[in-house]
């Protein structure tokens, strides 16, 4: 479906202003202007979209309704169908989740000599990692430094980030790039081998490393291949539906559920690492999402029942540029690399209304504000959007840049008859990332002993807003740390006589009853329901 004649008419306005916009940067916002647009237009600031958690370690904290709904769900496991004394898998380290954090945690735990089981709900590798396009940050050039990276991260996060986690992120970053290069990841490089790096929203130095616009896919396919080449047990289509604890209330395993046979299996583990990703598929505030099918906050539900504290769950990242046309790809991510290369957002009159590389929350809020003013474009399916002037990229960097730097994007739109080299794209913010998660320290330990967390399921690193390229980084920094630390801890644990139990979940059910929460929903929900056609 190429552009309709009405949209074609509007594109003429974009083309008309293009020459005069070339070489003229729109001014950045002042700190006051940023705060103003956030207060008035960012979804996180709409109070009635949140409510206080009624039970658990964060009782009284504000969570999105959709998260409260799963947190306050009843356990899906039927107690009497599980015999926790019958052990199906007996391992040192159990890794829950098969994205970038799970794979890197498994590799490091295995390298440390641990017997590892990786279990995942869908296919190994199918995760948000594989969809990350734009890049991965690391301060590894002489013009840059880990301290500069630190300042960008904490400023982007509105100074709320957990400092020790930011420090871990920026300090480990160059080693992560080196590790990936050594595993055979094909980064974009100059002829002399130095990394091609670019800006992302909110970066003060060009430190975004990329592999065309398949950066996450490239990293994930290499990590997955490496895991499969080693003696690591991988079980697919088998989500964890409840954690298991020992008599001292420490994490000691999990119940996994075989989707096909509908059977439960018991895993005994000395340490457990949760790497289940975020909550995009809960569709907070009914936003479309750029997230993977499996992003249903399962790890949060499991860890919360086991007593782990969550952090920053009142903030969700809406990526400024999700596709709002054509209908088949509504909500899909338009990588920030498109703006990094110089594409600018424009209103219905072809005028720019915000600097194109503000931080994601500010950029998204400015787009929402422009549409609220009536300056957005209404698509044939009734969605709102603003233009993202992609043809500017070739004007700025030379013919062929879009084709070379953004092959995935070109292909994505070409499938539906839109040529992003010639025509601008219609975009609107899409639910992209869970800023918060299970609170951890810089060893990736949660508040529950022997329970580690890495990747998007963890919280604290990014504060209230994450910058582009720091998620591909954190899954590897934290995944590696979690794997290494969980394996080391496992060595000191003797769990031969541990009695695995579900007392924590039973207690949680009692609390739910005491709070008058009825058994209307069960969780983790595992698979989002799209059979009603509501959202997808």
């Amino acid at each position: 479906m190429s552009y309709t004649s009405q949209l074609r008419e509007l594109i003429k306005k974009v083309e008309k202003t293009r020459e005069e916009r070339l070489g003229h940067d729109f001014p950045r916002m002042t700190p006051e202007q940023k705060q103003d647009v956030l207060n008035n237009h960012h979804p996180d600031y709409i109070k009635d979209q949140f409510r206080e958690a009624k039970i658990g370690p964060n009782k009284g904290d504000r969570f999105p309704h959709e998260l409260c709904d799963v947190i306050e769900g009843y356990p899906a496991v039927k107690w009497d169908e599980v015999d926790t004394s019958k052990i199906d898998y007996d391992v040192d380290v159990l890794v829950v989740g098969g994205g970038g954090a799970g794979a890197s945690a498994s590799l490091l735990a295995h390298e440390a000599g641990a017997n590892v089981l990786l279990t995942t709900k869908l296919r190994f590798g199918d995760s948000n990692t594989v969809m990350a396009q734009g890049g991965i940050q690391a301060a590894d050039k002489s013009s840059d430094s880990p301290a500069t990276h630190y300042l960008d991260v904490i400023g982007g996060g509105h100074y709320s980030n957990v400092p020790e986690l930011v420090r871990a992120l920026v300090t480990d970053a160059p080693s992560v790039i080196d590790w990936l290069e050594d595993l055979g990841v094909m980064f974009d490089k100059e002829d002399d081998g130095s990394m091609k790096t670019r800006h992302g929203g909110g970066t003060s130095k060009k430190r975004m490393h990329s592999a065309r616009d398949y950066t996450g896919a490239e990293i994930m396919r290499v990590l997955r291949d490496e895991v499969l080449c080693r003696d690591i047990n991988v079980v697919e289509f088998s989500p964890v539906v409840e954690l298991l604890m020992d008599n001292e209330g420490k994490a000691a395993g999990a119940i996994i559920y075989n989707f096909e046979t509908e059977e439960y299996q018991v895993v005994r583990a000395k340490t457990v690492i949760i790497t289940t990703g975020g909550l995009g598929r809960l569709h907070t505030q009914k936003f479309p999402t750029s997230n993977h099918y499996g992003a249903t906050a399962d790890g949060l539900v499991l860890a919360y029942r086991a007593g782990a504290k969550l952090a920053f769950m009142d903030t969700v990242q809406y990526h400024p540029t999700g596709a709002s046309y054509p209908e088949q790809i509504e909500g899909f991510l338009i990588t920030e690399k498109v703006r990094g290369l110089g594409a600018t957002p424009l209103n219905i009159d072809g005028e720019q209304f915000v600097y194109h590389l503000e931080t994601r929350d500010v950029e998204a809020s400015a787009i929402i504000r422009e549409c609220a003013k009536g300056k957005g474009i209404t698509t044939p399916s009734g969605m709102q959007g603003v233009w993202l002037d992609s043809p500017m990229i070739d004007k700025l960097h030379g013919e062929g840049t879009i084709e070379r730097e953004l092959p995935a994007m070109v292909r994505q739109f070409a499938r539906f008859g839109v040529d992003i080299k010639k025509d601008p794209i219609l975009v609107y913010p899409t639910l992209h990332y869970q800023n918060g998660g299970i609170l951890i320290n810089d060893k990736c330990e949660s508040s529950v002993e022997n329970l580690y967390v890495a990747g998007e399921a963890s919280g604290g690193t990014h504060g209230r807003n994450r910058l582009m390229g720091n998620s591909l980084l954190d899954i590897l920094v934290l995944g590696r740390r979690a794997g290494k630390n969980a394996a080391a801890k496992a060595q000191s644990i003797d769990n031969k006589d541990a009695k695995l139990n579900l007392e924590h979940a039973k207690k949680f059910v009692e609390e739910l009853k005491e709070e008058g929460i009825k058994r209307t929903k069960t969780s983790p929900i595992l698979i989002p329901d799209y059979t009603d056609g509501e959202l997808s």
Partner: protein
Amino acid sequence: MLNQKCDEKNQNNNEFVDIYIMGKRYSVPSSLTIMKAFEYAGYTLLRGCGCRAGFCGACSTVYRIGGNHELKVGLACQTKVENDMYLTQIPFYPAHKVNYEVDKLQGDGDQVVEIYPEITKCLGCNACSNVCPQDIKVMKYVSHAIRGEVSKAADESFDCLLCGLCASKCPANIVQYKVGLLCRRLHGKYLAPKANHVKDRINEIKEEKFEKQLDELVNSSKDELANKYNNRDIEK
């Protein structure tokens, strides 16, 4: 929301098509992708569904159009439904995987043929390229691999999603997508020039060159950080 939109559309344009999922007929809006049509028809997908955005290769689909013998394939999340489409999903395709220790390999082309000797049996039928949903010239990169041109094979295969549709069509039982992956890893590890600045930075970090600066930042108040942040140099 989608249903409502579709209903409106139906009234305006009557844009519905008949499709057949595992032999059963359903009427669905013509604007949907195959994946959304499955869900519109009431299916909850467990296998054959992943990122839903054309990056993971989990949703390989086989179909044909009524009256036509030709079997077609595509990604369910990227292909629109057509009238009289007969559909089925490929939830799992068993493919040969060789385990190797990448550290013990070398960057030369002989490695690829040693690990995947079946590539030399390529018949040149190009069925692999014809089914690739990414429009990759699959046969071309396999030819590069046969000739030991690892870097060329790596570059040509770069956009591969590992969906496995190429292998499903290969009469010589080549697992093309795994050959491409091996070539890319060999190129990335052994043949691409090294990024020396990364090693330099790692050494500086080991020598604790940045510890003092980081200590200062970690111990700064919010106001101090805001001041530094708002006045930081931004590279052009």
